[in-house]
């Protein structure tokens, strides 16, 4: 009779290391992850370090033959003391806050309404998520037409409802409406994304929790605040994180709608950064600008992720 333990030991192949020229398991593990680490260093870390270096110089990418000077903190001081850039940051913050506010509010409400069984539920869900499937370029262009004062649907509806002549105001022009118009378009496009994440959260709540609450004679209102909201909150916070990061770097749609105008009314930091980097070719200066934006997003996102983890631990 064969000893089963000895048989198992014999069946187990020699460690892979012995077969590949004496490499240890650890070395082989490194071999496997090395390409990924190399790519990460080449694509992410090296450009980041290079950008930091450039941010202390007067380098211009369109003048390769010009001598590059080390300017110390000059670029950072210029940016942080520039009223125009602070105005752009405020515009970005305004856009970020209101798009998140409306998308969370409407997205959650839609998810809550759609999270029940009724005829046509699937079709309605599909229709609601259509806007987020469109390209931002397409969205920017067709909303430009919708906002056109003479032939646009938006002005026509406003005239129909309020009696204000359609051609007497411009949604993308002067008068203070432009910054709200871009918020409306982004909300229209990305609310379905928030809705989908909230829907996933709502559907992950086990029915038995609500059944137990029913037995305890908890009202629907109480169930909503003590079961639904706390259990969906991590999902909601995740959606806010994704949308927040995306909207901080919003560029394409706003450029197509307003080009940053009228004046600088909708000039987001990302649009300004692109102009500095690839139209004015102030590479050193724009590198410092990019680092400041990166630190801002990274810092805010880190604080937020910590808060998200705390909510999940509850």
């Amino acid at each position, binding site marked *: 009779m064969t000893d089963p333990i000895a048989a198992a030991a014999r069946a187990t192949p020699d460690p892979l290391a012995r077969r590949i020229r004496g490499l240890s398991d650890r070395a082989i593990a490194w071999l496997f992850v090395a390409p990924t680490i190399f790519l990460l260093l080449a694509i992410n870390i090296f450009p980041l370090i290079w950008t930091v270096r450039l941010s202390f110089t007067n380098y211009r990418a369109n003048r390769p033959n010009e001598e590059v000077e080390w300017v110390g903190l000059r670029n950072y001081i210029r940016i942080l003391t520039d009223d125009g850039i602070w105005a752009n940051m405020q515009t970005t913050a305004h856009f970020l806050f209101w798009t998140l506010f409306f998308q969370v509010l409407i997205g959650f409400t839609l998810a809550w309404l759609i999270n029940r069984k009724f005829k046509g539920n699937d079709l309605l869900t599909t229709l609601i998520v259509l806007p987020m499937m469109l390209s931002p370029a397409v969205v920017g262009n067709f909303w430009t037409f919708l906002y056109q004062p003479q032939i646009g649907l938006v002005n026509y509806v406003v005239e129909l409802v309020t009696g204000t002549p359609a051609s007497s105001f411009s949604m993308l*022009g002067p008068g203070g409406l432009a910054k709200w118009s871009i918020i409306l378009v982004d909300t229209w496009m990305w609310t379905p994304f928030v809705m989908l994440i909230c829907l996933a959260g709502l559907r992950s709540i086990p029915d038995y929790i609500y059944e137990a609450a029913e037995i305890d004679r908890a009202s629907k209102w109480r169930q909503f605040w003590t079961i639904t909201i706390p259990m969906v909150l991590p999902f909601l916070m995740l959606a806010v994180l994704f949308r927040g990061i995306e909207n901080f770097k919003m560029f394409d749609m706003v450029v197509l709608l307003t080009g940053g105008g009228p004046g600088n009314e909708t000039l987001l930091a990302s649009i300004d950064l692109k102009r500095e980097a690839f139209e004015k070719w102030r590479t050193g200066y724009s590198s410092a600008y990019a680092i400041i934006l990166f630190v801002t997003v990274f810092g805010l996102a880190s604080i937020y992720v910590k808060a998200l983890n705390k909510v999940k631990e509850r």
Partner: protein
Amino acid sequence: MKARLLAACSAAALSVAGMASAQSSELTLCWAAWDPANALVELSKDFETQSGIKMNFEFVPWPNFADRMLNELNSGGQLCDLLIGDSQWIGGSAENGHYVKLNDFFDKEGISMDDFAPATVYAYSTWPKGDPNYYALPAMGDANGWFYRKDWFARPEIQAEFKEKYGRDLAEPKTQKELLEIAQFFQGREIDGQTVYGASIFTERGSEGITMGATGALYAWGFKYENTPGSYDMEGAVNSPAAVEALEFYKELYKTGTPPGYDNAYMEQSLDAFKSGQVAMAMNWFAFFPGLYADPNTGGDKIDFFVNPPQNQPASTLGGQGISVVSYTDNMDGALAYIKWFAQPDVQKKWWSMGGYSCHKAVLEDPNFVNTAPFAGDFLEAMGAVQDFWQEPAYASLLLAMQERLHNYVVADQGTAQEALDGLIADWTEVFEDEGKL
């Protein structure tokens, strides 16, 4: 085995040689995507027949043209062998080595810049400005001009009403202020049951639109970039009382004579407004005029053209481009052969006949030239008084600053004209300080 290896290597070598040969028998010409570019494609077929070189074209829509092409040049890209680039790029492209200096080639081939209109040579070819260092051959003369609904202007009831209001006949404006009056006269008027407006003008924020439009007024009032050319002494020139008045005029024209929502309008929007019968007048580049005249709905006998009206002096904003050989080309001989072919008087005549705006004197000084198109005389007149934006290597920074200042004042209603121009001097001073020129 050795034989197989040898065969494989030979095949590879032959295919590489074949590729190189194919490359040298092809040229890529880059330009903006617009009507004249299509005419150039047709014209270039003659070059293909004569030279055996296949022509490829890379046309980029105007809003992205500068971004796309300057990125290409700055990265040393080999997409374009020949580039018809904007006049403002010449300083940067010459100093950064993107364009080939053509003096020796011109001398060798007997191509004389004296054969081209002096204003176009100055604007499209030379760097530093006015020095006999040529980086391009004038290819497409252009300026900002105007066109209007001749059929509306001719209506007796409109004529009578205009005469009663302004005490003169309704006709092509002779001054900028007359232009404003005509725009205001048509603004909100009912014609054939449709509400129409005065004029579509350039107000675009993102690229160069509002600068190209407003300089039409600024130059006419006598705006100068510097007190002394080359001195970068801008105080009192850029913000002179005449310049302030011109900018206030442009804002008034925008506020009281343009269709609703024209707060970010450039070439396309101007054409659309005119072709859809919304406006009585419109500004745009002469390059579009052949297409406008041929338009079945608003062209022909319904349209006429006029040069940018003077105020204190005749002046038009310069458009147009020269054709340059890109330094990074792998077909230098082919590219130079194209320039040599394009510079011939016969080719230039055909270029004009196909819708391209030749700058060659053989075309422009032909006694019959003004009769060749309804806008030919206006084109000649405009090219005699063109002024261009800075052509400095830092032109993009200078242009973006002007775009911002003008749009803030004219469209977004921020501050006064004086503040806008004072601010512009501050912005430009900072740019020139960064450049080490101040």
